[in-house]
């Protein structure tokens, strides 16, 4: 069973439609027991880091997610879901994250001439060959909506970035059984559905 975690502040409708379109059978849940039973877990999200962690806490999902990660189950985070996998986040005060990925979530670099939030389509460049970005996948635009981003303490876990000229924004992370993207594949039209298709081919084996 592939569990999609519903923390009630995400764009869950869109996420579920995308999985349905690519033909991946998933189970939408907020129950800790389902997380424990799941073969693979998808953690989508729109919202603030503080409220996201608070919801995971209320639902009793923090420990089950950590156990699932250490048991080697595939976990895929989308946007806020990716950020929650970090050690800490700085949105509305510093808060502890799930701590699955080494790094912290910080505000996008403040430049007097740059608009924040970053809302729109950015060209995502793979930094290495990976499941989400195989060698033959062309550089394509994906849809981003965020003011914060994950700064991994181990740069090797990054698999794709957005080049901004000064500092890069981490677009995707793939680290052992964990993978996550800052953009919204469910809202990135063909590029996003193709990427979810590659993910499905991998996690589908666990279903």
């Amino acid at each position, binding site marked *: 069973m592939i569990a999609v975690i519903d923390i*009630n*502040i*995400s*764009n*869950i*409708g*869109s996420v579920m*439609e*995308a999985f*349905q*379109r*690519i033909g991946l059978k998933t189970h939408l849940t907020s129950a800790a027991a389902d997380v424990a039973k799941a073969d693979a877990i998808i953690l989508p999200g*729109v*919202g*603030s880091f*503080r*409220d996201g962690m608070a919801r995971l806490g209320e639902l009793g999902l923090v420990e089950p997610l950590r156990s699932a990660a250490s048991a080697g189950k595939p976990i895929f985070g989308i946007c*806020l879901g990716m950020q929650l996998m970090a050690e800490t986040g700085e*949105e*509305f005060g510093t808060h502890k994250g799930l701590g699955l990925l080494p790094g912290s979530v910080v505000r*996008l670099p403040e*430049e*007097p*001439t*740059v*608009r*924040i*939030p*970053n*809302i*729109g*389509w*950015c*060209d995502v460049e793979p930094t290495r060959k990976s499941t989400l970005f195989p060698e033959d996948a062309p550089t394509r*635009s994906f*849809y*981003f*909506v*965020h*003011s914060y981003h994950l700064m991994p303490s181990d740069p090797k876990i990054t698999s794709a970035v*957005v*080049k*901004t*000229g*000064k500092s890069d*924004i981490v677009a995707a992370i793939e680290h052992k059984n964990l993978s996550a993207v800052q953009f*919204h594949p*469910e*809202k*990135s*039209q*063909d590029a*996003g*559905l193709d990427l979810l298709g590659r993910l499905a081919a991998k996690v589908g084996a666990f279903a």
Partner: protein
Amino acid sequence: MPAWICWGVWPPKWEHSLSMYARRDISRPRLIPCLLLKNGLIVRSNLFKTHQVIGNPMATIRRFSNWNVDELVLLDISDKDYHDLRRDDFPVSYRGTGILDVLREVAKVSFMPLTIGGRVRTLDDISLRLANGADKVAINAQAVHQPQFIVDGAERFGSQCIVVSIDALKKPDGSHEVYTDDGKTATGLDPAAWAREVEKLGAGEIFLNSIDRDGTAQGYDLELVRAVTSAVKIPVIACGGVGSYDDFATGITAGASAVAAANIFHFFEISYPLAKKACIDAGVPMRAVGLDSKWLHREPKYDVAAEDARLATRLEQAKKGDFPAARPEAAARRRVIRWCKKCVYPSLGAAPMEFDADGVCMGCRMSEAKRTIPPEEWEKRKAQLVKILETNKSKDGSRYDCVIAVSGGKDSYFQTHVIKNVLGYNPLLVTYDGNNWTPTGWHNLMRMSEAFGVDHIICRPSITTLKKLNRLGFTIMGDMNWHAHVGINTAPVRAAVQNKVPVVIWGEHGYMDLSGQFSMNDFPEMSYRQRLEHFGRGYEWTYMVGREGLTAGDMIPFQYPTDQEIYDLNLRGIYIGNYIYWEANDHTRAMIEMYDFKVNEEPFDRTYRRMSNLDDMHENGVHDYLKWIKFGYGRCTDHACKDIRSGQMGRGQAISLVEKYDPVKPRDIYRWLEYAGMTMEEFDSIADTFRDPRVWRWENGQWAKDSIR
């Protein structure tokens, strides 16, 4: 050309910003279609005041998804949670009656970012919209009434989710003011100052609309866009006033992160890809043009099992005489039907119709607007037509200059007269032959090649196939002429692509004329959406494959060219009525005089006019009788409305004609029954399953409805 075209490198280096003060985005500029929804239907809006129904949102949104659109904004301008899709014979409908029900359907075909606005007042409103498929919400009046709502929304859902929508009006002294409640209530706020305030409160984006540019096609209010974009650091979406694809780039240059428009995307074929191409050609580094999503094809896929079950239910109802409109529970759906105060058009019917606050229909309003166009404006319009023809004509005679879609009727004669004999071009006439000709109609058609000295090709589908399509059309959607409506809208376009002719000339835009669907400055052109939604009622040729043994090969005459073919040829289909003054009665007299055009010798059973629909005996006959069965009115109403608007008939006379003709069961039904192999009893009982419960009631053993008032 490949479907995906790559352009330039983005982002440019930060130090290359336009000026040290100009802010820019990490992401690419976006091009955003904005849909206005009113009671579940898309409307075209003008100055926030008049609304014309464009159609069912699903048809349009599927198109947008198929084109890999950057983002979509849906603004619900209904004043209460209620919708009515007007037609029960469409395969598209939603369960429930609210905007959330629409959203759930939209989400199924929308893999693009989706912002929804309209009556977002509580945190629960936001949460429900996100749960049902939206990614962001646009907040308008509630932000003004209760600024803390922005703070709370941003804290709970994140700033990126909170779009504040600002409607601004330019005042006579040149300053701008923010309005709420669809432009009705002044707030005393300055748009730039208000934008700065909402940014401070936590808004992540601003949707900026100009009230006085809405629907005017005069371009963005760039002064407003500059004032607001330079006041804030958050992205701004500019909207309001786009009249040509070139307007989009000006909004980006003025500082907007995204440019939006509503109306223009409804007017033209492959509008979004062409608009994007215009932006990219102007140097705006948008995402590439996308023509055909591999995950969501243009031709809808139908749930065959569900459709079979729906059809079986209908046939079962017909057999048992259990008609939905006659059931006691149908009373709850009954509606008070109103009629236009000037003409006799009903508020619920087959055509997309909207009434204004004075109870006058958009058909009358647009007809008045058309009649007040001065002759010098018509001269300009004619010059525009000549420009289109001149640009697209054959340079060396190796192909035709244009295709004219003809049925051999009065309008066909007039179109050919203008194009060939007035303007001097070399057209190819193309006709779809649905095998339903009246003798007079066939005579008129056959004479065109000689009367005008032009080449003429006729697309004539197999009669075996046509018989099947007649039966299927009738049982599936209560319209045996589905084949004709789709065929007529397909054959000329196929011929244009095959002969590499980039212009198809149509006559009058039917719904613009009948129900004022567009305004005179819109110049709407043919589109796949319109063909599928209005002519095909949402049933594409693919729906018929597998039924009565029909194969894809049998359906070739009904297969519309691909978007790529249309894009590569830069094919457009224009309506001559937008450029040349169009009055059916006057034209007919001229065509009789000049070309010996024949009107019907015998009167029709269902209308007093003798000059219309000679190409298809069922169009004015049994096909139209089904409109009466469904909606309680027919062709005589259509004709009387047009004649009232042109000043040739009074409303009293129209009412007595309508009451005489609309209920008549026409004699051509006998031909049809024999042709399709059906008994009168079968016909009547299937037809009665299509009665609209909003119009009809079962009273004392017979069908009853309200009369025109």
